[in-house]
């Protein structure tokens, strides 16, 4: 367990470095993918997501108010993901790396959904009159609660479930 803990800490260091260094480039991947999802909501049909360093700006040619989303605050769970996979036995073996690749795809999808939830929540409760015009009380509560759940426990729940299910760890003990 001590060796596993050391590998975990090594993974934290690697994950932190990747998160810190890659976030600006990753935003260029995250923004257009999330924009596709966002356009499914008619209120955001003309919204454009522009990545800029560690943030994503929501802009539009329509009267949609602008907003700034701190994208890096939605993606730092990659540190825990890489640390958990690094803590596995022989982390460089092909099966583990394949599991990491699949988990990264799941994580990317969860980041798109996380950014979508954050945008919906921001526009539902933090855009003054525009929010009141376009969201009812129930919808505003829903998006705010969903954002809280995602940011406090959901983003780590996704990481844990991906690691547990994909790393083969779940088969080593009886659940």
């Amino acid at each position: 367990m001590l060796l596993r803990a050391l590998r975990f800490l090594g993974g934290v260091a690697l994950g932190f470095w990747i998160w810190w260094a890659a976030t600006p480039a990753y935003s260029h991947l995250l923004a257009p993918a999330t924009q596709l999802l966002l356009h499914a909501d008619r209120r955001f049909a003309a919204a454009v997501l522009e990545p800029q360093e560690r943030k994503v700006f929501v802009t539009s040619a329509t009267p949609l108010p602008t907003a700034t989303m701190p994208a890096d605050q939605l993606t730092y769970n990659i540190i825990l993901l890489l640390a958990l996979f690094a803590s596995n036995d022989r982390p460089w073996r092909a099966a583990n790396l394949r599991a990491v690749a699949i988990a990264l795809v799941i994580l990317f999808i969860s980041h798109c959904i996380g950014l979508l939830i954050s945008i919906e929540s921001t526009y539902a409760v933090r855009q003054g009159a525009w929010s009141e015009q376009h969201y009812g009380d129930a919808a505003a509560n829903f998006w705010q609660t969903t954002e809280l759940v995602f940011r406090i426990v959901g983003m780590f729940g996704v990481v844990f479930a991906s690691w547990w299910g994909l790393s083969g760890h779940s088969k080593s003990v009886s659940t």
Partner: protein
Amino acid sequence: MALAPRQTRFLIVFAVLLIAFYAVITIDAVDRRVVLPFTAALARVSGAALNLIGEKVLVTGTVISGSRFAVDIRGGCNGLEAVVFVCAAMLAFHAPIRKRILGALAAAVILEALNVIRIDSLYLLGVYHRNVFDMFHLAVWQTLMFGAAVFLFLIWTSIVAPRNASAST
């Protein structure tokens, strides 16, 4: 990579419990009567530890303040999110209920002890290295807290369901 029905059941129950527990601690009455007093107690313990190492701090409610810096321990910083996480995982796991409850209680105590270290280290970073405070507050300590929760879960599973045990454990 396909999951066995038991593993699938574990992940589903884990997700349901995680959301349910988190929903409970965000209820206004629970927040007022349980979470806030608990957070204030956590602030007092953390403040006492800081005074013990020579930092002169005052604790008012959930705020720890010194002459150069102050921290306000809010929801998300009181360690309850990691406690909820590990409790959901342990209670979803197939093991005798007594072991699940004991494991969850022990994990909660250990995680809150770790959280005192987190709060004190963040206060010290705020005083002496404020430029890295946000980074540690957001990314490093959150990862370590949830990492610790996962490790406690793994240690516990190795006790209640060792690798060589039969599938009926």
